[in-house]
């Protein structure tokens, strides 16, 4: 009894220490005048100003967001339709599809990214934004299907029967009854897909055309070249974006506990 409460507290400490404290330290340092990790912190916005003048970073951010946005739209639409198809129909490929859905999650992205690189290059799709969007859709689709399917599990299909008995056509039933009911799942899935896309640094790294870069690639390159607090500044901005995303997700996707 006390053991579990104690575990809860340990977990809190663990989370704070290994995830949130590092993040807070980074946020704090992004406002530090000094380039070295020197204390006490002297308030400064110089790294944000440097950011504002870094046009390479701007286009990288734009690319990141464009790819994330396009791939999120595509994978959410397609993934929801796939989850519905799984729910409603028994077709021959169904079992196969349900098995094939897991590997993209368990195989390291690095390997998949490498495989895609080789393949896209080979068949002439090449590199560039279009290849990145394709890659991100393929990678985030499984998350969408899994999250929407989880929501569908508790869907009472009598609701669809009821709508049809009241005169609603197939499409009216889907749009007015099923999709509104799925909405929390769909929104959570879209946020997941967006996060996955932003996260997929390596894929982007391999698939991007030499001229096109995305934000994670930029950060990575900057880190390799030299570790400047400018990185802390951009990371802080990304964290704020992620926090907004997470608030959206936890608003729609409840889990754990009884409440």
């Amino acid at each position, binding site marked *: 009894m006390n053991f579990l409460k104690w575990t809860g507290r340990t977990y809190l400490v663990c989370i704070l220490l290994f995830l949130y404290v590092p993040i807070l330290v980074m946020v704090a340092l992004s406002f530090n005048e000094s380039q070295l990790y020197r204390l006490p912190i002297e308030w400064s916005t110089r790294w944000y100003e440097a950011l504002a003048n870094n046009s390479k970073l701007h286009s990288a951010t734009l690319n990141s967001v464009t790819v994330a946005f396009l791939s999120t739209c595509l994978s959410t639409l397609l993934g929801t339709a796939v989850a519905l198809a799984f729910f409603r129909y028994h077709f021959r490929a169904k079992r196969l599809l349900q098995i094939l859905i897991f590997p993209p999650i368990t195989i390291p992205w690095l390997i998949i990214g490498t495989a895609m690189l080789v393949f896209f290059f080979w068949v002439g799709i090449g590199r560039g934004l279009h290849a990145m969007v394709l890659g991100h859709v393929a990678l985030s689709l499984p998350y969408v299907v899994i999250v929407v399917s989880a929501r569908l599990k508790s869907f*009472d299909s*009598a*609701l669809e*029967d*009821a*709508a*049809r*008995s*009241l*005169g*609603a*056509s197939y499409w*009216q039933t889907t749009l*007015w*009854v099923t999709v*509104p*009911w799925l*909405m929390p799942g769909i929104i959570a899935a879209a946020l997941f897909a967006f996060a996955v896309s932003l996260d997929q640094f390596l894929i982007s790294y391999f698939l991007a055309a030499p001229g096109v870069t995305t934000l994670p690639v930029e950060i990575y390159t900057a880190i390799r070249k030299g570790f400047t607090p400018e990185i802390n500044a951009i990371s802080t901005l990304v964290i704020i974006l992620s926090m907004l995303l997470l608030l959206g997700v936890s608003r729609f996707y409840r889990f754990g506990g009884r409440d």
Partner: protein
Amino acid sequence: MASVSVQNLSKKFGSTVALDQVSFEFEDGKFFALLGPSGSGKTTLLRMIAGFENPDQGSIQIDGKVVDHIPVEKRDIGMVFQSYALFPNMDVQANVGFGLRVRGISASETKRLVGEALELVRLSGFDDRRPHQLSGGQRQRVALARAIVTKPRVLLLDEPLSALDRTLRLEMEIELKRIQRDVGITTIFVTHDQEEALTMSDQIGILNEGQLVQHGSPVDIYENPQSVFVARFLGEANLLKGQVDGSSVNLEVGGTIQTRSKPASPLVICSIRPEKISIHKEKNIAPSSSNQIAGRVNEHIFNGTSLTYLVQCGDQVVRVFVQNLSGELIAPNTPVHLSFRPEDTLVFPDA
């Protein structure tokens, strides 16, 4: 308001026969109960009339028109589901108005019709509630209002009361019957609960293993079951085995009795309803024309309005139903005499 006619409906699911050559006429404006044990095909029949299932053979007509190839949404039916199936993302107003919205009825007309329907089910003023804010009985009423607001030709009810507890169910049985009578809509009601079927319907059809085994009014079927299955499934029946001896029957539990009709085979099963049996402590209190058997009270079940005695007769337990007129009980282990009239003693061949 329409009649429904089904002809020779058959359906298999894999190797399981769900329906086997079922034909029936549902007359206009009546309340029908389809009664049967689980797996008897009653729900399949209802879903076929609704259009959710297609028959392998046979045909369905609504108002004389074949509807076999008309999809659910064009059949103009109202349906109430076991789980209520209220749309959780809509309030009561939007739930009840759904069928009208789909038909493109104007907002003001929708509001008026929804108001009327809610009044009919006694839920005026609940317009803004969400389904999860309603009790079980209220949800059932909303589901009913939603099904009838479009003035469908037929109302289909799929065990709509089975999710309610006993008290609420008794209340809703009366309510549902009242509403059906007020609206005058042809209603088909599926249930496995014989008391619901007896209480509510104008006509009962009893299904067993995909076949329609008997149909008629509740009183008719209850008083004149045509098989042991029906006698046992609709109401309670004491089934006593016996051998025919001339025009009378020698029961295995002892006693020679007269039956309503002439026994048709040498080995028979006699069926006597518990409420048709009188129980006495003294022997010759019953008219001499009555059938009599002797036994000993095992126990009594006190029910408030009535008592059921379990009486040991030979190796069999006979149930006797007695209205609670005085609150007096016959104690367990008392020897008793049971009597019942020959016209209440049905006889079936022993298979």
